């Protein structure tokens, strides 16, 4: 099973481990992640304005190059997944945006949202299947109480992201069980960590992260896992009261598969 892979800029720098462990685990799971030859930064935030075309082009270029090789596009970072999937939705449903983007890009064949955007976790759930994954685990994370931290971009808005039940998701908890850990369900796992607001209103990010970490600790989680480099940074640096170690979920996956 071969998929086109869109790593995203941060996974080439600050979040190298997220990407590295993902590739190693994929190999063991029989998945070939073929990085797109020439991808550009997705812009990290989805342009909510309907009249903005330029900020959508990089995502469409990535989608088109996946379509050219007739493969699904796998993403790993929550922000890239959010932006590319919503732009893809625009290209499928919004005639005005589709026409303007296609006119600008002058592709030989109009792009109408054909490519499927699949997050790495969806790959584990729907393509490989968590039961299959459990079979491939060689050192399960026995006794580790792991809190899944979804953040906002993977789940919302659910009508477009269609990732999981936005208020009561189960995909990461199932993932944790598959790699042998004990999932800890705490109510703030789908609340926002503050994201980019860290740059201009640090105390707001701290307030958000503190309540998230406090809630996880109250449910006696030992650690948190996330798929987003910015959530990783905020939960790590901007939680000023209690502290919890935060890992990329692929790191735990790699450890469980014995390829760390």
């Amino acid at each position, binding site marked *: 099973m071969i998929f086109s892979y869109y790593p995203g800029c941060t996974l080439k720098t600050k979040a190298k481990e997220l990407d590295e462990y993902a590739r190693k685990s994929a190999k063991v799971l029989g998945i070939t992640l073929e990085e797109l030859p020439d991808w550009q930064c997705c812009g990290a935030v989805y342009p909510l304005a309907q009249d903005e075309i330029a900020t959508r082009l990089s995502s469409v270029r990535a989608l088109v190059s996946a379509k050219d090789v007739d493969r699904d596009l796998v993403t790993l970072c929550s922000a890239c997944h959010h932006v590319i999937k919503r732009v893809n939705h625009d290209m499928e449903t919004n005639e005005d945006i589709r026409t303007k983007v296609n006119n600008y890009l002058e592709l030989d064949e109009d792009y109408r949202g054909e490519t499927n955007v699949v997050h790495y976790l969806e790959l584990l759930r729907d393509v490989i299947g968590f039961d299959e994954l459990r079979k491939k685990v060689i050192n399960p994370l026995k006794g580790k109480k792991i809190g899944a931290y979804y953040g906002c971009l993977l789940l919302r808005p659910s*009508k477009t992201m269609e990732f999981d*039940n936005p*208020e*009561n998701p189960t995909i990461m908890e199932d993932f944790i069980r598959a790699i042998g850990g004990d999932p800890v*369900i705490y*109510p*703030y796992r789908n*609340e926002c960590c503050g994201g980019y607001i860290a740059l201009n209103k640090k105390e707001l990010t701290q307030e958000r992260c503190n309540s998230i970490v406090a*809630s996880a600790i*109250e449910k006696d989680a030992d650690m948190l896992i996330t798929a987003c480099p910015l959530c990783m940074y905020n939960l790590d640096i901007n939680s000023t009261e209690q502290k919890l170690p935060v890992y990329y979920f692929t790191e735990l996956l790699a450890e469980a598969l014995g390829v760390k």
Partner: protein
Amino acid sequence: MQKIGVFVCWCGSNIAATVDVKAVVDAVSHEPGVVYATDYQYMCSEGGQSQIRQAIKDFGLTGIVVCSCSPRMHESTFRKTAISAGLNPYMVEIANIREQCSWIHKDREDATEKAIILARTAVAKLNLNRPLTPGESPVVKRALVIGGGIAGIQSALDIAEAGYEVDIVEKSPTIGGKMAQLDKTFPTLDCAACILTPKMVDAASNENINLYTYSEVEDVSGFVGNFTVKIRKKARSINADICSGCGVCTEKCPSRKAKDEFNMGLSNRGAIYIPFAQAIPNVPVIDREQCIKFKTGKCGLCEMNCPAGAIDFKQQDELVERQYGAIIVATGFKPISLENFDEFSYSQCPDVITSLELERIMNAAGPTKGKLLRPSDNTPPRTMVFVQCVGSRDTSGCGKTYCSKICCMYTAKHAMLIKEKYPDIDVHVFYIDVRTPGKNFDEFYRRAVEEYGVNYIKGMVGKVAERNGKLLVQGSDLLADDQIIIEADMVVLATAIEPDESARNLATMLTASIDTNDFFTEAHPKLRPVESPTAGVYLSGVCQGPKDIPETVAQASAAAAKVIGLLAKDKLRSNPCVASSNEMLCNGCSTCENVCPYGAISYVSKEIRSAGKMEVRRVAEVNEAICQGCGACTVVCPSGAMDLKGFTNKQIMAEVDAICR
């Protein structure tokens, strides 16, 4: 040649405002066959109708065309007028120049021109009308009520009171429906069981009423006056005749894992159980998924301990077929599923409950024996938060677009009852608008606020998060323009209600129309609110739309009155617009017989004189009592032998020609 009178109605200004009525009269008076044309402000009024009667006499009219509102409104009125003037009622045609012309076209010239064409079309059709006399069909003097809640029980009692036999079919093991689960009812705060159980006992003891509990309707055929219904009596595995209802078996049953549906799953029940103490019939039922005997063949404790020997594991479903003159739908409602509303953590925290679950918790026969305790740790709550409109007034696709109507009243009731019994509990209610219209309803809500100090907050809850055993209810307080977090012990969600899941498939069986929310559609909201457009099918209770108990009982009695009106007749005038076959043209090819949904066509061999000699031919024959006049047979008949009275091929062709001229 016909002598036709055309009567163009102004309908006050509804038609006259955009249609030049005089021009229509003038244009239509030149049509072939028209000998008299006039207009009047209110054709359907006594004045208008007497004008018609007078014209029929003065001009010896053989047919009348009334250009007015939809035939679905006043066709029967003008047919009665014709009868009273000695004219055959089926020599009347209506041109719909209100709903389908004056109300939807702004431009006066366009509207007038269209009205003239519609009038001309009606005249063209009338020219080919022939007098028809309605056939008669027998009325089975028995009614069927589907659903054994308060709506079904009330309808059945009223019909039985009038001396007619009634069957109630209820799919759960006991009648009583949702009302039996309630603690108190608004606005009088009297206890639900006190007003319901006497009616249940009356229904059980009334010799005109037969109860089919733990049974479902499986098939409906036939039509008004003569429905044939197949009822599946599901196997209770208990012989109801010899069971005394002592309940020993329910105590002895070792399988305790099943969730008690009556207590909304807040407590468990045995595999053999009686839903609640005052259940009617007071006979247990065995849940075959939970019963160890059925699953593994071992156990059978209930059988051993039953003094009357009423347990019968071999009992099978029974199919009963009965005839009915009328059917009342009283299938009731259920709360919607809250899987799309987990921002309130309903599926993650046991202390977040729905209002119906709160009814069970506060009910003396409930899981907590009437004491208000938190389901998580059975401790009395200190702070309670009610959240209104959960799933109602929601156009986002997760919930229902309509207002469920009863939540504001029952939340005020809950708040008042709690403050009455436990004055020191803080009760907060997040609301968008409090809707308590009608007699004594607003006063009831204001008593909760002014006398009992319930804190109503204009705003909505954004998230409920559990922390240290407490529920952090984060919501907005719009008047204070503030975001508040209340540490609550219990959160009660006023959940939207939707029709029972049996509604959609029942509607298909009854060919009754049903809307996109699965509520049965009434024939006309004002003119015929308790009848379905399908003749012989009546609507009672929430199956027709959200309503509270007072309205349900009122509608139940109204539906019963309609049924009594129908059953009082010995004969029903059946629709005369039915198919008829011309034996000279019939090939006897059975194609029509294959498409008739009612099996109204049969074949006989007949002596027919054709081309001078007599020969025996196989020809079709239509049973006019069974035929409902859909016309499927007329189109599959190549030779045109089969035609539909009232909508003959020639009439429709004439209408097409009149429109396209």
